């Protein structure tokens, strides 16, 4: 098997087709969220669309989120006044049905019932307000950020990534990021890939990956990435710090060494790892699984 064939196998295992149960469940949940938002902001009629990796075609099975964008008209005052109001009012509406984690600009939805308590629905709702009637640029609220509002443009973000011809490489690097627990925003990783591999688009995917890691090693903490929708204003300070880049450099060095000495499987495992087929085979043999295992317990009685 060639490196390209192997990496294509990993991509296939990580793909979520439109008919996959995971994606159908996610879309069902997303419809619920839209219905809740529409009923809560009936007069405002916000624009509610998909964003994030689903729209950018960079979703991976191992760790996926569905961004639901909820943008209000620039002159809408029916429901909300300031950007902070928008953020808080949308959160309040969502809290009727979900546990809501307040992220910098997004609201993360989790289960609120006993049966799904704190289960992550992989849905981020991103509230915002269009800057004008053209409905292209948007201001979103930034909780705890240097600036309280951030100008952005969803369509530009999506096309910058989706049309980069590097979506497969981005998927594999997202997998690398998730597996290594790197605290780097996916959005920043995507921008880095597009920037660093702009001259490598015609190369095979394994060469693109090694070129990316090599570029991280070579930059010695001096790389700067920019948001195409807001080159001077977006807060990418999380990445544009020496310590973050040195951390990435260290992981990139380690990864290149592993590829060289132990091959690609040492980075991405076997293509059928954690697949539904592997689960089906493993979990159907209950007798084998149950033998000699430590049994879970709970240090408190079950609620009546």
């Amino acid at each position, binding site marked *: 098997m060639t490196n390209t064939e192997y990496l294509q196998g990993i991509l296939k295992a990580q793909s979520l087709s439109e008919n996959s149960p995971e994606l159908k469940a996610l879309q069902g949940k997303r419809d619920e969220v839209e219905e809740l938002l529409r009923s809560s902001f009936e007069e405002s009629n916000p624009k509610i669309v998909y964003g994030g990796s689903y729209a950018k075609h960079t979703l991976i099975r*191992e*760790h996926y989120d569905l961004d639901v964008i909820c943008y209000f008209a620039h002159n809408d005052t029916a429901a909300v006044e300031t950007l902070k109001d928008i953020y808080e009012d949308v959160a309040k509406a969502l809290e009727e049905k979900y546990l809501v984690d307040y992220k910098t600009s997004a609201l993360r939805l*989790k*289960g609120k019932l*006993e*049966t*799904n*308590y*704190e*289960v*992550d*629905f*992989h849905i981020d709702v991103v509230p915002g307000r269009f800057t004008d009637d053209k409905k292209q640029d948007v201001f979103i609220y930034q909780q705890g950020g240097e600036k309280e509002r951030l100008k952005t443009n969803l369509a530009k973000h999506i096309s910058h990534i989706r049309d980069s011809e590097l979506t497969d490489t981005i998927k594999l690097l997202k997998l690398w990021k*998730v*597996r*290594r*627990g790197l605290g780097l925003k996916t959005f920043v990783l995507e921008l880095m890939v597009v920037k660093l591999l702009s001259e490598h688009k015609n190369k095979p995917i394994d060469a693109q990956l090694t070129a990316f890691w090599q570029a991280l090693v070579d930059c010695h903490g001096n790389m700067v990435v920019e948001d195409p929708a807001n080159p001077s204003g977006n807060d990418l300070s999380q990445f544009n710090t020496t310590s973050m880049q040195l951390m990435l450099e260290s992981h990139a060095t380690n990864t290149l060494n*592993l590829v060289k000495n132990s091959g690609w499987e*040492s980075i991405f*495992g*076997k293509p059928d*790892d*954690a697949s539904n087929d*592997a*689960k*089906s*085979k*493993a*979990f159907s043999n*209950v007798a*084998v*699984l*149950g033998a000699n*295992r*430590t*049994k*879970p*317990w*709970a*240090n*408190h*009685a*079950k*609620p009546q």
Partner: protein
Amino acid sequence: MTAEELKKIKESLAKRYPDLNVVAKGSYLVVLGSFPVSVEGKIVDRYIIRVEFPPDFPKSFPQLYEESGKIPKNTDRHFDRKTGKACMFVHEQWGWLREKYPTIVDFLSRTVNDFLVWQSSFNYHGKDVLGARRHGLEGRIDFYKEIFKTDDMQTIIKGIDYLAREKIKGHWLCYCGSNKKMRDCHFKDILYLRDRIPPKLAREASQQINEFTAKKFQ
């Protein structure tokens, strides 16, 4: 912990779990990242985990947190809803587990893996088919039944009492109810158990039993 010690731990972890990072947080060691759940050598699932190892590990046991949001944090799934901590085993069992799996890698590959296999199986089947301990005191008593090798509650209560005491004497009557002195009966057995179950835990169990009994006869 010295930098050299931390480096050694990182190296041993990287060999078995290249996707897990280890960092020192105060006097604790924290292992975090994507954990591959394995059954008979095959990876069947993955979870983002955080495991906090106390400074006196393996004397004290580590705490596991699941951070990928794939498991409901409720009693049925063996998580403390308030703290998010996983309840991987009845606490009294730690004395046996640490003996069998004394290193960080052992703990991850056996105890944590067992717990997450159970969780993945639950997700797959939609119910518990592998078997878990009963909740609270009931599960605890089940464990004591196993180690005392009896279902007789009088024996178990007496046995727990002997585990809870700071010291025991060979001339005391045996907990098993034989009316023999302990030195002529189960003395070795109780000493073996006392090596594994700290008196504090036995006292906790004893108190739970007393509270349960008092409630029952109120």
